[in-house]
């Protein structure tokens, strides 16, 4: 090769590499990490990116150079290229060098994976339940919430499972993801290190409400989290109506109703997937049923009456078997008493 050609080749390579590097650096590809795990994933990501940029620049340089310089000027040019069949040294190089590079990525990835799976001492263990189409989180004191609240800088071990079909728990800012699989408990470690409120997203197609299966993860200061958590451990202040009402509200929360339905007496119940439950009496009248019967039927056999503007088959039809009968009765009674 002439010296000018080599120079041109290198210039193209540097140019292509520079453009790709700019794209890699100036586009904020990953969300700002909010956990130590996401920080480590960032590191692996940049490790792989440096190697990818190098490979991209080399391939782009040779490809672009060849396309510019080796195209026939005249379509009537019937000459052939030099009969080069291969070059053993070059072939060994482009077998061995990529093998070394991917091995390096493997090693770095394996180390980070091991670190990201380690919750440290005294982790906070939270059970995560996925169900169509909501998340619920159970804390060590047995209390269940529709929103995940975590203290900053403490290892959290999520025990992820599902009640019906496969879901997947993902908080983009935490970088960690785990499928929620019925019949088994999968562990996921998160060590939040940035205060804020982040979306919890279901990433495994789980049915008609999949796109709406969202919750929130709130990272709190340690002191704030401790006082919140102590507060939840106290017996809840009795709302008017007595123990039955608070039990009904707890069941309403526990089975995830809050994620899909708006119900004013429970502040957390702001879901929009299903109809609001504030006007059940009117709906029961429209369906031509007694209020209690209507509520019970709507839970056990949700397709029997579809509120105007909503689709059948969105609400799971499994609550009849998953909610024990005595709890179901409490829930029906609670809703009947508190709706308008």
């Amino acid at each position, binding site marked *: 090769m002439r010296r000018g050609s080599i120079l041109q080749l290198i210039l193209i390579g540097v140019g292509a590499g520079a453009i790709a590097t700019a794209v890699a650096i100036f586009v904020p590809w990953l969300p700002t990490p909010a956990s130590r795990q996401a920080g480590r994933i960032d590191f692996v990501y940049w490790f792989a990116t440096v190697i990818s940029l190098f490979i991209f620049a080399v391939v782009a340089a040779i490809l672009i150079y060849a396309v510019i310089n080796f195209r026939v000027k005249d379509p009537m040019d019937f000459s052939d290229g030099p009969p080069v069949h291969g070059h053993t040294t070059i072939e060994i190089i482009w*077998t061995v060098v990529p093998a070394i590079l991917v091995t390096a990525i493997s090693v770095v990835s394996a180390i980070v994976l091991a670190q990201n799976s380690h919750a440290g001492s005294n982790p906070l263990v939270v059970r995560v339940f996925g169900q169509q189409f909501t998340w619920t989180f159970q804390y060590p004191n047995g209390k269940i919430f529709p929103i995940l609240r975590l203290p900053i800088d403490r290892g959290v071990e999520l025990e992820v499972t599902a009640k019906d079909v496969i879901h997947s728990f993902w908080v983009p800012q935490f970088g960690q993801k785990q499928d929620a699989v019925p019949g088994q408990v999968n562990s996921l470690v998160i060590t939040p290190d940035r205060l804020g409120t982040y979306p919890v997203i279901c990433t495994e197609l789980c049915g008609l409400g999949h796109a709406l299966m969202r919750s929130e993860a709130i990272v709190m200061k340690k002191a704030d989290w401790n006082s919140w958590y102590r507060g939840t451990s106290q017996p809840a202040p009795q709302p008017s109506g007595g123990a039955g009402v608070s039990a009904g509200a707890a069941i309403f929360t526990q089975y995830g109703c809050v994620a899909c339905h708006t119900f004013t007496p429970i502040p957390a119940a702001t879901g929009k997937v299903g109809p609001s439950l504030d006007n059940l009496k009117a709906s029961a009248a429209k369906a031509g049923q007694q209020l209690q019967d209507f509520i019970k039927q709507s839970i056990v056999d949700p397709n029997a009456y579809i509120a105007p503007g909503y689709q059948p088959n969105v609400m799971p039809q499994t609550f009849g078997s998953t909610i024990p009968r005595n709890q179901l009765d409490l829930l029906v009674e609670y809703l009947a008493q508190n709706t308008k």
Partner: protein
Amino acid sequence: MTQDVRTAPAGSHADHHAPAEAGNGHHGPPPRPTGIHRFTAPGWLRALWTTPLVGFAGLGLVCLIRWAAHWDPIWYSVPLVTVATVTFPMGLLIGIGAFDYWAYYFSGKPTRPEDHSGHGARRWQDYFRPNTDHKVIGIQYLVTTMAFFVIGGFLAMLFRAELARPGDQYFNPQTFNVLISEHAALMIFAVVVPVFAGLGNFVIPLMIGAADMAFPRLNALSYWLLPIGGVIMLVGMITPGGGPSAGWTCYAPLCSHQPLGQVFFNMGVQWAGASSIVTALNFLVTIITMRAPGMTFWRMPLLVWANFSTSTLVVLATPFIAGSQFFVLFDRVMHTNFFETAAGGYVIGYQHIFWFYSHPAVYIMMLPGFGIISEVVSVMSRKPIFGYRLMALSLLAILVLGFSVWAHHMFVAGMASWLRVPMMVTTLLIAVPTGIKIFSWVATLWDGRIHFTTPMLWAVGFIAMFTIGGLSGIYLGSVPIDIHASDTYFIVAHIHYVLFGGSIFTVFAGIYFWFPKMTGRMYNERLGKLHFWLTFIGFNLTFFPMHYIGLQGMPRRVADYASRFADFNLFISIASFGLGASTVVFLYNMIHSWRYGEPADANPWRSLTLEWQVSSPPPIFNFDEVPQVVGGPYEYGVPGARHAILGGATAPEPVPSGH
């Protein structure tokens, strides 16, 4: 190409519509049946009554059994649909005569002496019946898969319209999920997997110097299984109660509880899978036993190597997806408990079985494309392929490694966690043979005399796009990054860079490359280039931004999404409509050129491989005389080198080759 190279035998293909074999016996089409015989002779008129006869016989049997067993209700949709998707297509196949010869054979009747009446296309109707000519079957496959490609693309346009804005616009979630599931299922099972069977069918026997495939009747049957599979999947869309909506991956237990349309998906996959397996067996036997004298394995064109590797993958892996779909179906129809957790089923088991096919399927959808690119790059650069043997060996390396990486689709699935690291290592190691291929193509370009015809544009476009898709694959291979990126739009971007920018680009390269051979006419070069540039630009504008929104937090398979992704999605939707529109240019070019294109020379690309040494289109039995292969297939620039000697009036002279 230029005028003078293809002026030569313009009208020469006319006489090839007559059988080329002279002498022994009757060769013309048999006399047309008349009167009532038109309804008993194999054909569509017979299918008109055999399809409902066999179909309803199956349904009747189901009802009879349910009645006898006192099951209620007697008329129950789930088993009926399951049986119907077997018996109606069987009736159709019986009607059009796919089993006639074997039926004679089994029943002890004298089999009819082969009059070749079912071989080759003398009129357009011959494309609409079981035909034993591999060239006809190849075109049947290609036209069918392109039809499914248009339908699948149209479905994508529909859900991109929905995704142009957050919130629900045109479709409810059920319809949206059906659209994405059907788009992917059609594109994978009815387009990319079988389209290579079509190209391979046309080209492989010619390339290895054979008169046809090893089992022509099986070949005829295997084609007809494909439209049956595709149509069954499409019928699922319009099933009362709702279509298949669990994604093309159809994960249990969600898909066991989908509306009735899911059964059509489960069964459609069986037909398409059976078609793949039968064709792959045929390829394997053909490639192993029917190569022309002198065509050693190390003299086979790389497309033949690629189809050899692919067919091995298909035969070994496809039964697993058949199994996975049957198990899901059994759970629904027979109340077995393969994946029902409540009864002790193993949910992750579905994914292991599914991906044990569906990862190798990625190579089933890619290796033949590698073969096409090797042919195009070498011919259009006028140079031998760089590192021929390593290119062939890397195909085999991908074949072997391809079976040891399936669980990288399951890094977040909750499988045995020790499996993650070994599967990551094997996954990343596949980058080595894949890299060898990319580097070798680029090295083949180096110092060549590159002719930028349409197929070459697609080939170079493929190399660029596949490099990007391969690099994003490195990210996904690394477990910690995959945990973040899994099930997001990053995956959607990656799969389209390898399956569209990868496989489909090679399909277009192949279709333009062999169009003159298949039709005897040249396509329109300017329209071909326009098609490439529209697709190339539309493709990148559509899919590149998906990397970003995926990593930022947009999950796949959602009809509604966070408002901060609204602008990106609007942009992507508009770009995707442009991408869809580019297909119109392709279709117009193909249809118009097929009818009115300039007659093509036998060898417009000055290629050395055997398919170009016969007329365009080739004679009905390919070669008047068995060719003698005397050298490698890519000896461009080697003075005096020949790949094969045809019309051997002269004794074959061994010519020194580069190998």
